[in-house]
C-alpha cells in the first residue's frame, strides 16, 4: 500500500516511537520540535515546543500521559502528552543522547554525552511526581561511565536492570540496586546506534554501524542471531506478531552528498528472525534511515530518515501470506 508521508520536520529525523496502543506516533528531529501524529492517517496532533537544540531521543510512558525528550541543548524535558506543555526540565552538563521510561514509568533513565570536558553519565530519576522542582531533585542513581560513551539505553524487565549500548560496540547490563556492572559483552565492532526490545522484553535487537544488527537475550546478553547488511545499520525492530525483524540504515549521512540514493541503499530491509535471511526491502527514503519502529499490532511499521520524512507503511496482505519453508 502507498505509505503515508509525514512531513512536519524541517531536519533529519532522529527517533520515532509508537505509544503502547499504537494509535500515536512520536517523532523527534534535529529541528528541536518533537511531533506527535495519528498513526492511522498521518495527521499531526501536535508539537512539543521548548527545546533549543537537536532532539536526540524520546520516549513515551505506557499510559501515554507523559513524554520524555533529551536534546543537544543539554536538557531533558518531561512533557504532558495531552497538552504538550512541559512539566519538568533537567539541565545536564552535556547533550542527552538516550532516555527511557521504566516499565512501571515510575522511573526514567537517561545518559549524557562525553563532551565539553564532561564524562558520560547514566542517571536514574524518579518521575512519579514530576514537576518544576525535578531539576533540583537528586537523581536516584548516578553512574559515571568510564571509557566508551553510552549511545543507546534500555530498561531491563521488572525495572531492576539497565542495558546500555556503547560507542565501541559493547553492551553492558547494570544492576540498579548497587549501580554496578553485572555483565559486559562485545559482539559489535562499532557504535551501537539503537536498541529495541522484543514485545515480551525477553530479547532485544541492536543496530550497529558495523553493518550488522544482532539479537540478544535481555537477561544474560547471550547472542542469539546476527543480521548482516553491507551498510551501517541505524535502527532495528522486532515484529510483535511475526518472526520478522526490520533494519533501517544506509550510507553515512556524511557521505550521502557524494552518492546517489541507489548506492546509499536507504532501504528498510526485512529479515527472518530465526533464519537470518533477508526476504524483502522497502525503498522510499532518499537519505539514510535513522529510526524504524513496528506498530504494536504488527500490521504496519514506520521509518524516519535523514531526509526529514517519516513514512508509515501498512503491510499488504501478501506480507502476511508469505512464509518460509521449513
Amino acid at each position: 500500500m502507498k505509505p503515508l508521508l509525514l512531513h512536519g520536520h524541517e531536519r533529519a529525523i532522529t527517533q520515532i516511537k509508537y505509544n503502547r496502543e499504537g494509535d500515536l506516533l512520536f517523532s523527534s528531529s534535529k529541528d528541536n520540535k518533537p511531533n506527535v501524529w495519528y498513526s492511522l492517517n498521518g495527521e499531526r496532533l501536535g508539537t512539543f515546543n521548548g527545546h533549543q537544540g537537536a532532539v536526540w531521543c524520546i520516549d513515551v510512558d505506557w499510559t501515554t500521559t507523559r513524554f520524555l525528550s533529551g536534546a543537544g541543548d543539554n536538557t531533558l524535558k518531561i512533557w504532558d502528552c495531552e497538552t504538550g506543555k512541559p512539566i519538568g526540565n533537567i539541565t545536564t552538563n552535556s547533550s542527552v543522547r538516550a532516555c527511557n521510561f521504566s516499565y512501571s514509568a515510575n522511573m526514567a533513565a537517561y545518559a549524557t554525552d562525553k563532551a565539553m570536558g564532561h564524562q558520560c553519565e547514566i542517571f536514574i530519576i524518579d518521575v512519579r511526581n514530576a514537576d518544576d522542582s525535578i531539576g533540583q531533585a537528586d537523581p536516584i542513581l548516578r553512574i559515571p561511565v568510564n571509557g566508551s560513551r553510552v549511545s543507546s539505553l534500555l530498561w531491563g524487565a521488572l525495572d531492576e536492570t539497565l542495558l546500555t549500548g556503547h560507542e565501541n560496540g559493547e553492551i553492558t547490563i547494570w544492576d540498579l540496586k548497587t549501580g554496578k556492572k553485572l555483565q559486559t559483552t562485545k559482539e559489535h565492532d562499532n557504535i551501537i546506534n539503537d536498541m529495541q526490545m522484543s514485545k515480551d522484553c525477553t530479547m532485544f535487537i541492536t543496530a550497529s554501524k558495523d553493518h550488522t544488527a544482532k539479537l540478544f537475550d535481555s537477561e544474560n546478553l547471550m547472542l542469539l542471531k546476527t543480521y548482516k547488511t553491507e551498510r551501517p545499520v541505524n535502527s532495528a525492530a522486532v515484529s510483535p506478531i511475526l518472526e520478522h525483524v526490520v533494519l533501517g540504515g544506509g550510507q553515512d549521512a556524511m557521505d550521502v552528498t557524494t552518492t546517489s540514493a541507489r548506492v546509499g541503499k536507504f532501504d528498510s530491509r526485512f529479515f527472518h528472525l530465526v533464519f537470518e535471511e533477508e526476504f524483502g526491502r522497502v525503498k522510499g527514503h532518499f537519505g539514510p534511515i535513522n529510526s524504524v519502529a513496528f506498530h504494536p499490532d504488527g500490521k504496519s511499521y514506520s521509518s524516519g530518515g535523514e531526509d526529514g520524512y517519516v513514512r508509515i507503511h501498512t503491510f499488504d496482505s501478501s506480507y502476511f501470506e508469505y512464509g518460509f519453508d521449513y
Partner: protein
Amino acid sequence: MAKKKVDDRSSQNSDSTRNDGDLSSNDDEPNFSDPEGFIDDITDEELLGDVLKQKPKETDGVESVIVVDGVPQVGPDRLEKLQSVINKIFSKFGSIVNTHYPTNEKGHTKGYIFLEYSSPMHAQEAVKVTNNYKLDKQHTFLVNLFTDFSKYEKIPEVWKPPEAQTYVGQADLHYYLLEPDAYDQFCVVTGQGHSVQIWQNTQPEPAVLQDRNNWTQTYVKWSPLGTFLSTFHKQGVALWGGPSFTQYKRFSHSSVQFIDFSPCEKYIITYSPQGDAHNPEQKRIMIWDIRTGQEKRSFNPEGPSAWPIFRWSHDDKYFARMGNDVLSIYETPSFGLLEKKSLKISGIRDFSWSPTDNVIAYWVAEDKDVPARVTLLEIPNRTEIRNKNLFNVADCKIHWQKSGDYLCVKVDRYSKVRKEKTETKYSGMYFNFEIFHMREKQIPVDSVESKEPIQAFAWEPIGSKFAIIHGESPNISVSFYEVRVGQAPSLLKKLEKRACNHLFWSPNGQFIVLAGLGSNGGGSLEFVDTQDFVIMNTTDHFQASDVEWDPTGRYVVTGVSIWKAKVDTGYWMWSFQGKILKRVNLEKFAQLLWRPRCPTLLDEKQLKEIKKNLKKYYAQFESKDRMRQTKASKELIEKRSALMEKFNAYRHKRIKEWGEQKPRRLELRNGIDTDELDSDSKNVEEEIVEFFIKEEVTVIE
C-alpha cells in the same frame, strides 16, 4: 637434560661425602672424586658441547690462505724487493697477516708463495682479481685458494656414475578438464592479493577448492589454456598447477608487473617496467621456457610502449615486436631474429598476428603523397599476400576474428586536416570497416562505412557476425552485421538508444551482453540472442566494472572491483539468458577470472552429431539438475528446521519464565494487564474519529 643428571648425581655424592665427613672431621674438604666403580657415561661433548665448538682446529684459517704460483724465482739478495712488490699487489684486498716464501737450500725462492689474509673474504677477492695477473712478460700469477688444493685432491680417481634420482611424478595438470559435470573453475582475488580463492562453479552452489592468504602480491593471471595460475611477487612470478595447486615453476625477475604467455604455454614473457634498483644489470623484459624454467632471452625495451611489447604467433613459433620503422620477428626455439635481420617498414604504426595462421597484419601511416596502407604478411617467407591502400587515414585498429576467417580494420578517416605546430587536428571524421575475407581466393576486401563515431567493435568468436556500438550519447545504437562468402557485409539489426559502451560475445557466439561499464555506464546490462535478436533480459549491476563469460558460454559474471569503485564491491553471477543466479557482495573484491579451457578436441562432424542429439542429452541434464535442486532445497529446509527447533526450545524456556513474572509486572503497572494489546478491556474507551475528506471534481475535456 644432561646437566640435570649431573646435578642430581653431584648432590647425591655430596650427601654421601658429608656423611663421611661427619664421621671424620668437619673441617675437611669434601671429597669430590667419584666413588669406586663409578662409570662416567657422559661424553665431553654432551657436557660442554658449546665450549668444544669454539676449540681451535688445525684447519682454521686455511680459508684465508691463498697460493700464488708463477712468482719470479729470486736469490736471497733480491727477496726483500720481491716481498715489497708482492705486498703492493696483494695488500689491496685486505691486511696480510702471514706470508711464507719457500726457499731451496741455496736460499732461492721456489716460484710460489703462501699469503694469509685476515679473513676468507679477502682471500676470495684476491683470487678473483689477481688470478692470471701479468707481472711482466715472463711471469703471470696463478692464484688459488689453499682450500682448493684439498678440494681437488679429493676427487676420486675412478669416475662413479651419479646416483639416479627417484622420479617424482608431476601432478596431472589437466585434471580439471576431466570434471564429469564440466563445472568450470574461477579465481577470486580480494584486496591486494590478501586472499586468493579458487572456486568450482558447482550447481546449485559453487564450492571453494582453495583459499590462500597472500598468495599473490598484486593480481593473478591464468595461462591461456588454463593449465597454470600465475602469481606475482616482489622476487618474480610463480606458476601453480595440478589438483592442489602446487608450485610448478618460479621465474625470478624482481619487481615484475606484467606477464604474457605464449598461446601454447611454451614460453612466458615477464616485464618489470621499473627494473630493479639493487640490480641494474637485470634486463626489464625476460623470456623464459616454462617447462625448464630457463631464461631464453632478455631485452631492455626502448622507451614506453604498449604491453604486450612482444606478440606471439598462434603456434609459439614466432614472436615479433615493432620499433621505429622496423618490425623484428624472432623465431623459437633459437630466439634469434628470423633470417638474422628485422624488416624495415617505414611508418609502421601497429601490427597483429592472425589467431590461426602465421600471418601478420600491419598498417603504415600516410606520408605526404603516399597513402596509408594495410598489409598482410606471410611468415616465415615474408610474402605480402594482400595490400590495401587507404586515403585520408587518421588512425586504424586491427581486429582479427577468433577463428582467423576474417580480419576487420577499423579506419578513422577525415575530410579535413589542419597542422598546428606539433599537433595534427582532424575534422569531419567518418569511419570505415575494411573486412578482409581471409579464406577466399586473393582475399577480397569489403567496406562498411559509418558517419557516426564508433564506441566499440567486436567479432563473434565463432560465426560470422560482428557488432558495433556507434553514435554519440544519448543516441547510442548497436548494429549487427553478417559477413558471407562472396558478399558484402549486410546489416542484420540495429538496436537504437542503448545505454552501453562495451560488447561481450559469448565464447561460443550467438549470445552477447551489451554493457555500460565505467563511471558513466551505470552498469546497465542487456542480454541479446543474435539468432533472432530477442532481448532476453535488460537489467543492471550498478557500477559494474567487469564482465566475464565462463569459457563454455553458460554463465556471465559481472563484477565491481575495488580497483574501480570503493563501495558495493562484489560479483554477480548470471545465466547466459540474463537470469540472476547469485549475488556475492564481497568487501575489497578485486578480480574474478574464469579458468580457460583447452580448445575442444572434437571435430566438426562430432560437434554436429552432438547438436543433433541435443534432445537426448537435454533430458539427461534436466533430470540431473532437478535432482541437485531438490537435494539443495532439502538441505536448506533441514537447516532451517534445525534452526527453528533450537530457537523454539530457547523461546519456550524464556516464555515460561516470562509467564512466571506476570504478577510482578502487574504490580509495577497498578494491576493493569498490558501483556497483550487488548488484554486490558476495562480501560478502553471507544472513540469515533471523523475525518474531513476533500472532494474535488475535475472535468476532463
